[in-house]
């Protein structure tokens, strides 16, 4: 079972969960209540006060150390922005449940792991975002990525970017994390192929590789 991650990196941001709540079930129950939504055109939101946004807005995201201009709607999740709006598309971050159950969409926001499907893109202006594409490349794997390959901590690989990012976020914040801590930090991620035992091995190898060298220069 996956345990939910903190959906919002800080308290002053509006998470998708609270957004859905305040939108009063209409979005969540859309399929069942489609008769009620017969209105032909989605009513454009009107700007009323300070932070209220409507229609397409162009924002700038700080993604993997680069500024990206991207046009989103207020409801566009970070996951959808990454996968469908940003050029070139950042499809390494996977969509599996789109509701905070599985961790396949894990990204790093200001150093902390978060579910990209539970964040609104417009809330992330000015924050430092990192995705799996920003950690390393095929020619130059990060220590976590290299350890995943070495230990076969992947099978189909669809959950893998999420686990790589979550493991990275854990070890960067807690370089001396023991296995119990690593497991707790990875508890928000699901893998159907059953790579968990080798992910644990990979995380421990990566921790050793990332450890600051003792008594060095």
């Amino acid at each position: 079972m996956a345990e939910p991650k903190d959906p919002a990196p800080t308290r002053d941001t509006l998470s998708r969960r609270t957004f859905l709540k305040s939108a009063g079930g209409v979005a969540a129950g859309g399929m069942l209540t489609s008769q009620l939504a017969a209105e032909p055109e989605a009513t454009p939101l009107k700007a009323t006060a300070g932070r209220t946004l409507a229609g397409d807005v162009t924002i700038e995201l700080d993604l993997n150390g680069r500024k990206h201009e991207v046009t989103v709607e207020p409801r566009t999740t970070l996951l959808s922005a990454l996968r469908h709006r940003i050029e070139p598309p950042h499809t390494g971050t996977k969509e599996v449940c789109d509701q905070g159950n599985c961790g396949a969409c894990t990204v790093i926001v200001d150093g902390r792991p978060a579910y990209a499907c539970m964040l609104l893109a417009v809330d992330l202006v000015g924050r430092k975002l990192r995705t799996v594409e920003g950690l390393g490349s095929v020619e130059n794997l990060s220590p976590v990525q290299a350890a995943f390959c070495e230990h076969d901590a992947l099978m189909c690989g669809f959950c893998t970017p999420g686990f790589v990012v979550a493991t990275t976020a854990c070890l960067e914040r807690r370089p001396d994390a023991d296995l119990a801590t690593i497991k707790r930090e990875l508890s928000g991620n699901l893998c159907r192929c059953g790579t968990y035992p080798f992910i644990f091995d990979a995380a421990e190898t990566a921790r050793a590789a990332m450890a600051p060298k003792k008594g060095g220069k």
Partner: protein
Amino acid sequence: MRARSEPAWKPKKDLTVLNRDIPRVDGPEKVTGAAKYTHDIRLPRMVYARFWIHPYPRLNLTKVDVAPALKVKGVVYVKALKEAGEDVRYQGADAAIAVVAAETPEAAEDGLRAMIIEAEELYPPMVTAEQALDESSPKIGRGGKNVNVREERGDEEAANIALDTVDVLIEESYSLPVQHHVCLETHGSVVDYRGGDEATVYTSIQNVSGTNASAARALELDADKVNVITHHMGGGFGSKFGIGIEGSTACRIAKELGRPVHLMLTRGDEFLMGGNRSGSQQTIVGGASKDGRLVALVAKADRFGGTGGGAFAGLPYIYKVENSFFESRSIYTATDSSRAMRAPGHPQASFGMESMVDELAFAVGIDPLTFRKQNLEDPVYHRQLDRVAKEIGWDAHPNKTEPGAVDGTRQVGIGFAISQWGSRSRPGSQCEVRIEPDGRITSTTGTQDLGTGSRTYVAAIVAEEFGLEVGDVTARIGESAFPTSAGSGGSVTTGCSAPAIKDAAHNAREAFEARIAPMLDAEPGQLVWRGGEVISAQDPQKSLTWKQACAALGSEPLSAMGEWQEHLRSQGVHGAQAAKVEVDTVTGELKVLKMVFIQDCGLVLNRLAARSQVNGGQIQALSYGLLEARVHDPDLGLMLTDNLDDYKIAGVQEIPEMISIMDDDDDRLAVMGMAEANCIPGHGAIANALFNACGLRLRDLPLTADKIIMGLSDRS
């Protein structure tokens, strides 16, 4: 021209690449997010399509008005798949009422919300066995029946007479819920058609070579003008053999719009229409003699496969029983059809059989390991059971013939179970090996990699042949335009494709040797390929590097085809499982502490990937045993578990210490698939371990804390 000699696997001691730990060749792409799955395909002017799926199983549609969706910003296409007056007959694909395509996924969702679809719900929803078996219910199943007898074997009268003679007789019922595949990548396709007479269909499918015909039909194009591509896929587990309504609909939209179409099921739709493992309800009467012989067994098993027939492997399962009778029926409900799922029918039969065997063992007072071996003829199972018993610590375990007590403490128990799988393969698969004068070498076949690691052995078998490293060979798989390969079902992939790859490599080597042997003053067949060099067997001073040898080809690359060769593969996998659990006899919390599984599979191509598969099989069985169950509301007809919050699968915290062992006493020098036997016995072994810990026998999966605590309070 046929090769002069027959290809043969080298003895294990001579292998330098195969039968070792090989990190998978596509690992770097997958860990960096560079690997493109069907979900990730992005094409110019591509539109996103979504289905409008009604959640109720049986309906008479009264209004289907899709036109309002066309007025929604971003929507470019709508189509009703059913009309007012038509019925929806079952939950899932038949409840796809309409489809929409739009510039963004969000706009497609808006389009769905704008449609007006009204229907009268038909009662009862027919989602439970009780509803199906009720005399007054409508007949919705195959042949106008809700129940079909599928199989009968053995002599019921003789078995019943034998049951009268036994020393110990047990009659019990065992049940398993419907399980979902939960591929993390949902079903779907991205169809690249932009006019003209050619198309590319990216699809998440485990049958690449066999799919271009159906895609071409939906596109109304010639099959040889359609290339089906699955370079990477996020799991299949048996559920992805055809493009389905989602694929054919994407093809039709693309054909009409002349634009690429992305149609992947949402997670909710995936639960409703992506297939499942049939549930099972079994009544078993078993009898044993005092000295621990299985004397007689009468078993009746119902399969719950929705509109499909379901699967059940048959009883007795593996164990030798002197007299037996088995009957199985399909019970049809108005729910999504079962599909093949990793070892179809076996996890169900294994649970019933292993539970009954365990009950009889304790009833006659013989420890469950000894009892099992007494009733197994194949010596492979004896050595495998002994091995897992050793690894799990059975010798030092106190509860051999009596379970532990319910005394308010945490109790530890150990359980066993075994499994089998055929892994039969068949002719038809092909492979091409191509060597370029500049030293590049590729191995190309139309197989697919579901996560099993097949891409890696497509390269590794060729590397072994030429004394190269795996990274020197490029594996090209997952296109229907490539040499044909079998669909991945029933663990046939390795048995079908590895012999063809080996044959192609062998043929390429012989052709290569004919060209370069004179340069080394040697005869073809008298060359040794080792460490990136080709060396004369007679005069080791004479050698060429790989690059020099390739350069000798001149300007023309060398290409050789290979075909499936029966003698390179074998069949028949055996496996044994041990599980150790801890149960809190106050709270009912059940924790699996350790799982050990051993299996044989002839020549192991990649030991690392093989252990990954065994881990994965054990974890899926643990997940089925502890957590998974599809649940319907019997009155509302709704599936209550159509998401990954309510449908639980095993996560990090459920994972015990795991040991996955390849049985090296298996001396068959031939290959076979190996990914099914390991997902069969785990949940049975865990249930047996629960009994061994505290004397509570649960016969109804999953083994949740509420059932355990109720069971424990009944006992005390």
